[in-house]
């Protein structure tokens, strides 16, 4: 069976290597400050004993007060998964560092999040809308989007 890392344990490991990067943690996930998300994810990918070589899924949720970007990481060598989240407060001009340099698999998913949620990923090679056309008003997966 795939082992799911408990968020609290994961937070401890991250805290050791990247102090002050943890914003919050629960059993399900570790929540990282958006500014440090790239370093933390790079660490998770490169650390010998974690080895998260695959970005399984990348998504975002609109919680009205804040947006949550969720990284589902997978280690095929160790058969483990973990969930990393980052919270972006506010509703306008949201940015978070792109992880396309770590995982190519993030390319299309980050574009999709920008398209549907309106979160910009910095340093993404091709930050354009993907499912909708350029010039579409608004970002439809936001809770305040009105048709």
């Amino acid at each position, binding site marked *: *069976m*795939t082992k799911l890392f408990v968020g609290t344990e994961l937070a401890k490991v991250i805290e050791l290597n990247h102090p002050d990067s943890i914003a919050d943690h629960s059993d*399900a996930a570790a929540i990282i400050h958006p500014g440090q998300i790239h370093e933390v994810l790079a660490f998770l990918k490169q650390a010998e004993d974690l080895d998260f*070589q*695959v*970005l*399984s*899924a990348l*998504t975002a*949720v*609109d919680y009205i007060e804040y947006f949550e970007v*969720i990284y*589902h990481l997978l280690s*095929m060598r160790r*058969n483990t998964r973990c*969930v990393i989240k980052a919270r972006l407060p506010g509703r306008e001009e949201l940015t978070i560092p792109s992880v396309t340099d770590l*995982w*190519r*698999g*993030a*390319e*299309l*998913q980050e574009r*999709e999040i920008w398209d*549907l949620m309106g979160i910009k990923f910095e340093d993404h090679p091709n930050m354009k809308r*993907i*499912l*909708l*056309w350029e010039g579409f008003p608004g970002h*439809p*997966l936001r809770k305040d*989007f009105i048709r």
Partner: protein
Amino acid sequence: MAIKTEPITINMGPQHPSTHGVFRLRVTFDGEVVVDVEPVFGYLHRGTEKLAEERTYVQIVTLTDRLDYTASMSNNLAYVRSVEKLGGIEVPERAQYLRVICAELQRIASHFVSIGFMLQELGAFGTPLMYCFRERERILDLFEMLCGARITLSYMRPGGLIQDAPEDFWPALGILMESMPEYIDDLEGLVTSNEIVLARTRDVGIISPELAVNGSVTGPMLRASGVQWDLRKANPYEVYDRLEFDVPIGYQGDTYDRYLVRVQEMRESVRIIEQCIKQIPGGAIQSEAPFFVRPPVGDVYDAIEAPKGELGFYLVSDGGISPYRCKIRAPSFINLTVLRDMLVGWKLADLVVIFGSTDVVLGEVDR
């Protein structure tokens, strides 16, 4: 005298015979050679994720049918599993076995479609496609017995299935499973060692295992690159831990390997179904789950091995009767990440074949 040449840009699609629906590739050619590819998505975008936020958990099952419309059962399965995990719903054992049978039948049907269209794109004038569709038709007949529908099935519900299989389903399934290996042999006889197929597909459109893993590629495409990763074995869901099967892999991740892996997976699926027929117990097929599922507040991600790859649903519940957020991790969509790496440097004729071998379904890509 040097002749002045310049690259030519072609819009392949959205109306093109080889784009598997409505997909558009903006391709730049140097003569016949592809120098750049830019996929353009979204022609089939129906906002499934947004629609799901306004429907009850049971209603969303019908939405999932329309994602990968060649593999509705797998979509149903992935979705209801996520709901069950979120709501802590138990599933009776008989339903679990039936789900596995359906998912594997659907895998065979989906791989038939994939192989058939890849060969069509190779230029075989319909014959292999018809061979594939002939057998797929019989699987769809079985589905019709189960739930009355052939394509958009909606057979599964959180907590089980809508109804038990009818009496005459089992003999029909037995007959099909007996003849299926022969059919696959037929198809392989026509294709596998065909000189032209070999010339066209071997060493073409290679994805290295490193690129596949880095690009989040999953499913037969990943396994064709030699990475033995199958969620059915790595994280056995339903009753896969009680079943014996192998995970076929390819040598180097070229188009031919992707074809071969699919053929071998069909054989494994037949094996799985035969074991299921022997092992399936009696009993209920639906647990006492309420019609309006109200899962506790929280979020869950659960994935299964769909025919195209890792199909996952990320559900966020706010305690209501519909999900707060329903994210679909669509394998065909994410597999397209490596499209450019596969296509650049090959010829126009290879382009359509490589694209066919990735087995994308646009319903799932655009959602």
